[in-house]
């Protein structure tokens, strides 16, 4: 969509009025110049797509060659329900068509292929990359490619397993202005890569990190070893998963009780199904986070977010070197007045 110089058009001002009152016209302008890639169209990532299109980003590129399945029809509200309408078309194509309708000012398109096959240069096109439902190895590889680009490419991984879910955020080095009462301070957050975060020794993490973190790492490792795709596991894998859980806890000098059997069972039982209320919650939080990162406004979360229907909590976990050392792992604040040229 054409941009009339630097100003928002009358059409944009009218449409985005209520959200401009939340984050301001400057942030809205920056959003309209941002380009997002979403790979893996799950119930959760589709919620995110809806949110980001409504917010008015410059473009959204969708990647998912899979055909429609029962599970997809369950949790994805962008797919027409009749086989005559969806037959023969990929998830990306179907979602693209629906999403275009939500906001004609956003360019929504499809790119075919497997995420793992694209080289680093491909990711230069984007300001943010969101992956859902891919293997750990793919997540890791894409994250690394993003980190190697000269322009910052924000990376997010989102997963919903039944009634709980996880969001991972990597903004590399993110500087933004934090406004507190009358003072403005420039803050810098340093994010670890996905691999660096996952490699953090469990023993060194702050006490009371949510059990979901550990449980998902066990399942992730199990999928890796057995070369299974996320969501392909089931309750029949429980005894093997428990064995692995025990081994990992021992290796990490952590008590086995740290990862409750009931939790692992619940995650396995979910298979590839997503609980729609949790998709809405995760898709909403993810939407907010991407908007914050792209607009440079607001405190982005660092670096994991968890929601579990069982306790109703939405929790941020800082799994990084800073958290292990400092009391609360907060952003490094540098008062604007004191910044000197480097």
């Amino acid at each position, binding site marked *: 969509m054409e941009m009339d110089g630097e100003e928002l058009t009358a059409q944009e001002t009218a449409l985005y009025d209520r959200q401009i009152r939340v984050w301001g016209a400057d942030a809205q302008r920056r959003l309209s110049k941002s380009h997002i890639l979403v790979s893996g169209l799950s*119930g959760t990532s589709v919620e995110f797509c809806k949110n980001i299109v409504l917010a008015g980003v410059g473009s959204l590129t969708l990647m998912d060659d899979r055909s429609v399945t029962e599970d997809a029809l369950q949790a994805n509200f962008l797919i027409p329900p009749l086989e005559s309408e969806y037959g023969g078309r990929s998830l990306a194509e179907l979602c693209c068509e629906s999403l275009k309708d939500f906001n004609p000012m956003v360019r929504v398109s499809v790119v075919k292929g497997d995420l793992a096959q694209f080289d680093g240069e491909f990711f230069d096109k984007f300001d943010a990359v969101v992956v859902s439902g891919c293997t750990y190895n793919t997540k890791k590889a894409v994250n690394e490619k993003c980190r190697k680009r000269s322009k910052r490419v924000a990376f997010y991984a989102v997963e919903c397993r039944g009634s709980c879910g996880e969001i991972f955020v990597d903004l590399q080095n993110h500087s933004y202005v934090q406004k507190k009462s009358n003072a403005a301070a420039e803050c810098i957050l340093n994010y670890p890569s996905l691999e660096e975060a996952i490699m953090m020794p469990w023993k060194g993490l702050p006490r009371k990190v949510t059990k979901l973190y550990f449980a998902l790492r066990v399942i992730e490792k199990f999928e890796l070893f057995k070369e299974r795709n996320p969501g392909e596991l089931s309750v029949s894998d429980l005894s093997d998963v428990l064995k692995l859980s025990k081994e990992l806890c021992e290796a990490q000098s952590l008590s086995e009780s740290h990862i409750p059997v009931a939790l692992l069972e619940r995650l396995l039982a*979910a298979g590839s199904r997503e*609980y729609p209320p949790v998709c*809405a919650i995760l898709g*909403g*939080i993810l939407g907010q986070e991407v908007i914050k990162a792209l607009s440079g406004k607001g405190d982005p979360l660092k670096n994991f*977010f968890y*929601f579990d229907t069982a306790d109703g909590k939405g929790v941020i976990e800082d799994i990084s070197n800073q958290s292990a050392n400092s009391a609360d792992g907060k952003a490094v604040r540098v008062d604007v007045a004191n910044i000197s040229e480097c």
Partner: protein
Amino acid sequence: MASEPQLEIIKGAKVLMVGAGGIGCELLKTLALSGFQDIHIIDMDTIEVSNLNRQFLFRQCHVGQSKAKVARDAVLRFRPQINITPYHANVKDPEFNVDFFKQFNVVLNGLDNLDARRHVNRLCLAAEVPLVESGTTGFLGQVTVHAKGKTECYECQPKPIPKSYPICTITSTPSKFVHCIVWAKDLLFAKLFGDKNQENDLNVHSGDADNSSKQMEDVFIRSLDENLEEYGRKIYDHVFGYNIEIALTNEETWRNRKRPTPIYIRDVLPENLPGQNGNLENCTNEGSPVSAMSSLGFKNSQDVWSLAESSKIFLEALRLFFEKRDKDIGNLTFDKDDQLAVEFVTAAANIRASSFGIPMHSLFEAKGIAGNIVHAVATTNAIIAGLIVIEAIKVLKDDCKNYRMTYCLEHPTRKMLLMPVVPFEANKSCYVCSETPLLLEINTHSSKLRDFIEKIVKSKLGMNCPLIMLGSTLIYEVGDDLEEDVAASYNRNLDKVLAELPAPIISGTIVTIEDLQQEFSCNISIKHRQAPDCLDASESIWLTNSSGRFIDGFPTETNR
């Protein structure tokens, strides 16, 4: 994850949604995806452009249509087999009585005003149907569960009162921009373009001046042959110049305050010649709304105008009202979607602000203040909708021990962005759900029944269709089926003071008030109290509950 028995419970449930707006669209979608098959939805609104940034079931082509109906159609597209019954109606309509509410397993609110929330709360209590309440503003939101006998009702805890300002701050001593907006909107705009018969404090100034008041009235009347430009400048000088001069004569007011500066048009726009102000050509495009900004070439609503620019826009807007919208004059109330009205109010507020040394604001900001616009984004509504469905399912399973009030925070508290809290038990002094009596202290010799009904029964107690009794005597009721002589005697009662009613309301008596639709009944003990002279009538009412807490009400008309 939904288990088999849970899925069955969901499939068989009948759910009522009140509101098909920001929260409503997200909620309807998530309910449908979660397996709900019988959903009823009430919303009286039609779709506006500013809704489209978050109410994603609606499109540009739907502007003007019923939200409830369009939402239903949109969801049926991906869930064609489910039943969604839309009502394009006000939830306060008599058809939505207790029997209507009784048919549902749970009620889910997605409302934007307190008045309607209280009404639904009472109906849910009367019908004994659990209510899941919610609200969002920007990045903040919350979901609360209300089940009779198990938790607080929606009215057990006091809700924050919308800010209102003392009249003298508005008319004489503004110190914030919002005071200038209220002056421009409720006084000046109302005086110029609103109902001529309404009382208006625009000319109230410190010091008694009944005579000069009479003279001032005449300034606003435009004689038939009076040139529009001249009229505009006359009004300008009167409200921004002369009125300020008069206010300055009262030394006492300004002893500890910054004195305002009178502003006259000749000083701000010395070259102000007729015809120079606007280009009529610009605003006569077919279909485009009349706008002073367009006429004068101002494009960006985020710019803060200078005093000179505000003055130009003030005069141009005034001129355009008389020239292009003279039919409206005398009937207008401020509407935030009326571009010309917003321009006029912004300009007027800015000039007044300038006079009082208060920083001026852009049209965008002024519109938000004048229109009480709630800032809103899609993501918060989506999160809240997910949380509502989770609570709704707990209600269907009667899982009371796990009910939670969940708060969506902008900044984490103890690592939490979504914070669940166990609901409190019902407040034993809540006059709504615990049926405890209230105490009213009022001047029974000077307060009329009409005031009692408007200020207490409707405003503070939130009743729509009241019935008022003393013992077994009916003092007042509303209804279409009243006999003529009965209705006439009720009307006569309205103008009587409380102590002189056929059944006198005096110290020691207990008045029973009922709203048959809400099936809500309330007893009020009366105590006569003489207010000190300096208090005005609306402030000489003391209404408290059995633990001595004041019952503060909300205006019955809400700004939408």
